[in-house]
């Protein structure tokens, strides 16, 4: 990994030297690559990595991305012509298919018995589906009629997380803010959370960094907080990220990556990416201001560079490059951030 990062850094200088070698140093500096982020997590920006011919492969909102077991990057968009777009790691198109879900929003990949499965939420059709990588539906979780819900349109699921035992957790982030706990067969086991804890329970993930004690990390996006719950639904603690309207936690190695759709007072086009270390402290904010802690508390975050508009999800690959999908950003394709 480090070798590849050094290669990127060094070849960029070498190529710049070849192309511009006869120019003075000041001229070379004018064409240098932008580097964003802070501390140990800094990146170059490849704005066109995921760009496709929109006549054939259109997108509306690019909601979420995951990497499959073969290293391919899978994008979920709410354009029903091709809800799923599969890229090679280098950004080449590998395939498309549709779920016909106009509100396709949350995308989670889980490996079960050696096979990759996708869990997709649709906040407009009020359901969660589980598919194979080729799009075959193998499970549907419809609106959970009962004590908490009386009509389908109260249930607008935004994200799923799957536990080691196959249990499925669904965050109803655009609906009633409940977290629904199912077993792998789709039988409802528990409902917890709700408006007492969440304003926009937008994303959910299972934090397995402490292998002996896995917990749920759930975003309260409008509250700029991550909330930790036990797998049984007991509230444990919270992480404050003032000014950061975080979408879903993506846990890779020891870090948590979060697309931050808005910042500051929540104005349009103010997004960036947040990266927390193993102690859950913000260490890098590509596109954002320098993270600053005072008396142990993170000071309010805001956008510093207009790289992103509305980042909605981050996918981290094996080289720790990032792929950023954006909501309501002019139907643009994902951006790649190459770690340096």
């Amino acid at each position, binding site marked *: 990994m480090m070798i590849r990062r050094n290669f990127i850094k060094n070849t*960029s200088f070498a190529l710049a030297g070849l192309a511009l070698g006869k120019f003075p140093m000041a001229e070379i*500096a*004018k*064409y*240098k*690559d*932008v580097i964003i982020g802070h501390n140990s997590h800094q990146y*170059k*920006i*490849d*704005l*066109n990595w995921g*760009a*496709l*011919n*929109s006549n*054939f*492969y259109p997108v509306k909102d690019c909601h979420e991305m995951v990497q499959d077991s073969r290293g391919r990057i899978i994008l979920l968009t709410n354009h029903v012509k091709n809800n799923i777009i599969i890229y090679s790691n*280098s*950004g*080449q*198109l590998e395939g498309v298919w549709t779920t016909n879900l106009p509100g396709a929003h949350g995308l989670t990949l889980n490996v079960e018995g050696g096979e990759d499965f996708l869990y997709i939420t649709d906040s407009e059709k009020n359901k969660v589906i589980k598919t194979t990588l080729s799009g075959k539906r193998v499970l549907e979780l419809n609106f959970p009629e009962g004590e908490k819900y009386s009509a389908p349109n109260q249930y607008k699921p935004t994200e799923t997380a799957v536990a080691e035992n196959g249990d499925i957790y669904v965050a109803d982030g655009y609906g009633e803010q409940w977290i629904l706990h199912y077993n792998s067969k789709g039988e409802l086991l528990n409902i917890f959370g709700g408006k007492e804890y969440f304003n926009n329970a937008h994303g959910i993930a299972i934090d397995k960094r402490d292998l002996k004690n896995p917990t749920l990390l759930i975003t309260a996006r409008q509250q700029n907080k991550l909330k930790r719950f036990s797998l049984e639904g007991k509230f444990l603690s919270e992480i404050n990220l003032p000014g950061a309207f975080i979408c879903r936690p993506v846990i890779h190695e020891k870090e948590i990556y979060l697309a931050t759709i808005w910042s*500051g*007072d*929540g*104005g349009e086009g*103010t997004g960036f990416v947040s990266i927390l270390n193993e102690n859950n402290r913000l260490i890098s904010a590509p596109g954002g*201001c*320098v993270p*600053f802690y005072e008396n142990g508390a993170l000071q309010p975050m*805001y*956008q*510093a*560079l*207009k*790289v992103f508009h509305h980042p909605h999800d981050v996918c981290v690959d094996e080289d720790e490059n990032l792929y950023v999908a954006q909501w309501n950003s002019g139907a643009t394709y994902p951006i790649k951030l*190459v770690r340096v």
Partner: protein
Amino acid sequence: MKNLMLILWFFFFAFSCKTPLYMPGYFTKVKTIQLAKPLLKVDSIFFQKSAIVELELNHPQVDFRFSDDGWEVSSDSKKYDKSFNVSSTQTIRAKAFHKDFLSSETVSIDLIKVNSLAANAEISMSPLPSDSYIGAGAKTLADFKKGSMNFKDGNWLGFQSEIVTIDFGFLKKEKIESVGISFLRNNDAWIFSPKVIEIWIGGKMVKSKELPPTQKGRKASFSYEPIFFPVEHTDQVSIKILNLSQIPDWHPGKGTPPWFFIDEVFFNFRQ
């Protein structure tokens, strides 16, 4: 031959899955990314003696330039080194600059000096604000605390009535020459500016001011409307705010009553 090449070029791009001109490994260069707007912080937009202005954009090697003379900000404008005081009504404009990035958009703020009587006044409202947006009651209108864009911050009073009347009673008769009303426009939150503001003194309307209708697509903003009239010697002033009866047809909330949000009222008096 040249034409054939052009045709082949066209077909290559028209039927390519990638967009034209994609260069793998080509990274965004300096001078192409814009800085975000700096934060322009003031201790109070409304002030009696002076206000403190501070600029912030926590990114290495950022410079700020600002103007206080009505001119647009350029790289030749005054350089900002540290927070400064403003002691008269004026507009502060500022931008961030950096050698590697495009300069930010301009951020601006209107700072308003007031010599208000309202803090000592007895204030009553009809109807009362909505229970959800009642702030600290009537005194919210005279506490010198500017509401933020978060209209739930407790510094705003929110009404959903076609007519809102606010009565001010002063301790003694004063020579009053203007009233200033600070309110919020935020179409996305169904908050609209009033149609008309009337000033009534001694049972007589001394001034009526019509406000331009809110246009579709207008960004959320603070508004301050000063209303001048011939000097009146009085201890009672009523402000009648006439709102739209319903939200315009171009808005998703069409046909329903709009909200009116007000945070401060000032009375400038002749000493």
